[in-house]
């Protein structure tokens, strides 16, 4: 464990080296929040609640959603496919390291960096600039845990796309497709409540919603029955474990391409 934490520390430091990147993300996010604010404001013009969500809750959902998006965007798919294509992966395979764990902890460092310089400032912007109050409750306390699980699940999708580089030279198209699928089906842009009921019930069975919808609901509606939160977390844990194990098996299979066909 300690040896992998060294990678978290390292990639966190790399984040500090390139300190202007996060600043630009923050500015971009601020503009997005402005647009989203007025968009939802006009949607809520004639009613206080839509689909059992108030304007306050919806805006909070969308705003935090955008911060979580930046948080989870650790470019693991690009990084892994690059290491495979350039043969850098060989260097790591000569070390006493588990590749998946190493990549997970490296991207954790980036996420912690974003948490500090993007998520926390975004929360401040929401409360100070847009004057939207953040409700507190049981869900608020569980949010960090849910976010961590969302990070692992999102990591698995990225890692899976990255490993495909063993088979295809370029993962650009696959990566873009994955991005769109997750954004559309996870409730990252629009809360799932706004989807048609049938579609909603299907989306709730898929893993994508556990990346955005689950943690965001905990934050926007923090005073629900604790039972609901527990079952949400259980779903997340199950998906995290299943996807982590599946991508692990897939890596063992894919790495044979390298083992047999050469680096």
């Amino acid at each position: 464990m300690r040896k992998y934490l060294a990678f978290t520390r390292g990639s966190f430091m790399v984040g500090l080296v390139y300190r202007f990147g996060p600043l630009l993300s923050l500015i971009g996010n601020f503009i997005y929040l402005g647009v989203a604010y007025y968009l939802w404001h006009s949607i809520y013009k004639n009613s206080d609640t839509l689909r059992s969500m108030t304007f306050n809750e919806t805006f909070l959902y969308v705003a935090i959603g955008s911060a979580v998006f930046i948080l989870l965007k650790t470019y693991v798919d690009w990084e892994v496919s690059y290491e495979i294509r350039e043969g850098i992966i060989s260097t790591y395979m000569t070390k006493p390291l588990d590749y998946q764990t190493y990549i997970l902890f490296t991207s954790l460092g980036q996420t912690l960096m974003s948490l500090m310089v993007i998520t926390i400032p975004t929360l401040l912007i929401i409360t100070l600039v847009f004057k939207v109050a953040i409700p507190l409750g049981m869900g608020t306390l569980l949010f960090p845990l849910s976010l961590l699980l969302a990070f692992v699940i999102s990591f698995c999708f990225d890692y899976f796309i990255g490993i495909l580089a063993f088979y295809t030279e370029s993962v650009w198209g696959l990566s873009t497709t994955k991005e769109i699928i997750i954004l559309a089906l996870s409730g990252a842009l629009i809360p799932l409540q706004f989807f048609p009921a049938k579609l909603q019930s299907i989306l709730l069975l898929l893993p994508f919603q556990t990346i955005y919808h689950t943690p965001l609901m905990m934050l926007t509606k923090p005073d629900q029955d604790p039972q609901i939160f527990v079952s949400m977390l259980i779903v997340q844990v199950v998906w995290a474990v299943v996807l982590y194990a599946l991508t692990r098996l897939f890596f063992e299979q894919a790495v044979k391409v390298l083992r047999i066909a050469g680096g």
Partner: protein
Amino acid sequence: MSLIHVNNLAKHFKVLNRREGLGGAFRDLFSGDYRTVKAVDGISFDIEAGEIVGYIGPNGAGKSTTIKMMTGILKPSGGEIRINDHVPFENRIRQAQIMGVVFGQRTQLWWDLPVIESFKILKEIYKVSQKTFDEHMGMFNELVGLKALYSQQVRTLSLGQRMLCDITASFLHNPQIVFLDEPTIGLDISIKAKIRTIIKELNTARKTTIILTTHDLGDVEALSHRVIIIDKGKKLYDGDTKKVNALFGAYRTLKVQVNDFDEGTLDALKNKLAEQFGATNKITVAQTEEFWTDITIDQALTPLSEVLNCVMTNFSILDVRIVEIAMEDVVQRIYDGALA
């Protein structure tokens, strides 16, 4: 039992025969037309603890493929490898703990961070204790003057400095075996000499077994008593470096640029040299690149100065370079029976 035991090792790759053009590229999508490339084809050797062995051969001989099999990255298609009585790719993580690897063309250091951070990360990866870490860093500092580089970002290091750091980094966890794959590639003479000294000193101080692949005979000459020469996946020679040196160490290639070069020049050169030094002097004349003519001589038989003198007085020469014999020529001469 020797530390490294390699028996009849083979690695065959299946390569798709690619066709020309756009149409060919489309047909390749459904092609089953593979050919087998025998990168390593039945190599055997044993290496004892503490040895430095030069593993040499021309480009594409199968050197790196052998290293990749010994480090557990590649799975052999045939034969066996045992390191410390274990199969490398079966228990990769445990095996990785006892070896260090440097791939000359890549770095194991973190590109964006100061040098010392990479050493700290390696310390955690290999679970090196703080005491050992301090000792080793002190030693590296004495050898390389590493301290001056500590705070420099890896990306700003020169190729030579980076290589020094990479090599010392591979010794950090006190491995039993270190694989150095082309550690001096692309470096100039002075830094090459420094790197050789450091490898030698680390080997003496730690009794580390070192496998050195290179296509620079000078590396082997300076470092190892034993050399394994391979070509096209097969072992050509395994034995004393002195013997190879005695044979090829005295060879030099005189590269000359002849003014008004034409088809007759090569023969004219050959005849002139044969006339002056006799027909059995083993001097070869060949054109290997445009404008340059290579005259390879054995200094034990014919003094370099006399050959140079002869060429300079009889031909109009624009430029002259003297280089050591190329790996390809050594291999060719072994095929021709030089070491038999």
